């Protein structure tokens, strides 16, 4: 049985400036839900293994001025065994091609190196990977 999916957008992987290696990710504008300002532009990487999107608390507190500890607490655990605490906050993500997304995302209470877009983000989209070409495809509909 064959399936056909039509994707409307194609994106290059983001390039790691040091190694020259590329990783699937998007540049997004981000703000607290229900507010227009302040905003931050960030990089976030696609992580199909993450149940929730996870953002660096150090980065968001500094740029958005949010009260991180006011959000409900949650624990996160990585396959590597790394565990970290996070707080849930509703964020609004904006991409000029894909539109606006509201997510109840996890914000780390310790600094992390990369922001991750998890399956809560993927729920809003259909996505395909062309690893050989270092591109990924998106249809901005569930």
């Amino acid at each position: 049985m064959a399936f056909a999916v039509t994707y409307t957008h194609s994106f290059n992987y983001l390039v790691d400036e040091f190694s020259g290696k590329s990783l699937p990710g998007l540049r997004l504008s981000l703000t607290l839900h229900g507010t227009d300002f302040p905003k931050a532009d960030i990089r976030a990487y696609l992580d199909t293994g993450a149940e929730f999107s996870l953002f660096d608390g150090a980065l968001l507190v500094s740029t958005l001025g949010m009260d991180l500890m006011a959000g409900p607490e949650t624990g996160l655990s990585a396959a590597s065994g790394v565990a970290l605490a996070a707080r849930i906050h509703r964020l609004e993500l904006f991409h000029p091609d894909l539109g606006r997304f509201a997510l109840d995302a996890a914000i780390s209470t310790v600094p992390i190196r990369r922001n991750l877009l998890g399956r809560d983000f993927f729920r809003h989209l259909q996505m395909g990977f062309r690893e050989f070409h270092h591109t990924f495809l998106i249809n901005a509909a569930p």
Partner: protein
Amino acid sequence: MKAKAKKIRSGSKRKPVSKEHSRPSPNGASAAGLRSVEDEWLPKHPEKLRAHAGEYVVVEGRRIVAHSADAKAAVETAKRRGVTVTYIFFVPPPLPPNSYRIGFL
């Protein structure tokens, strides 16, 4: 013969579309998106980031406007320098030779 002058309509001042935004990439993928100027410039100048491994950097156009191991300090410096919406990210230290990533955390 009168030279034909191209009429410029003063009433239709359209914002020019950024070349960075509209140019397709070599493999046909969209180059559109936020901060495409910065993300085209950075891979061509890895030396600019090398000095900031382990730090947060704020990039504006073709310039690193602030950097610090403390995100708050980097953002404050950027704001003092007139940046209103910060494009900020952490610069991870390079992996040792013959090392590969498995997962982001």
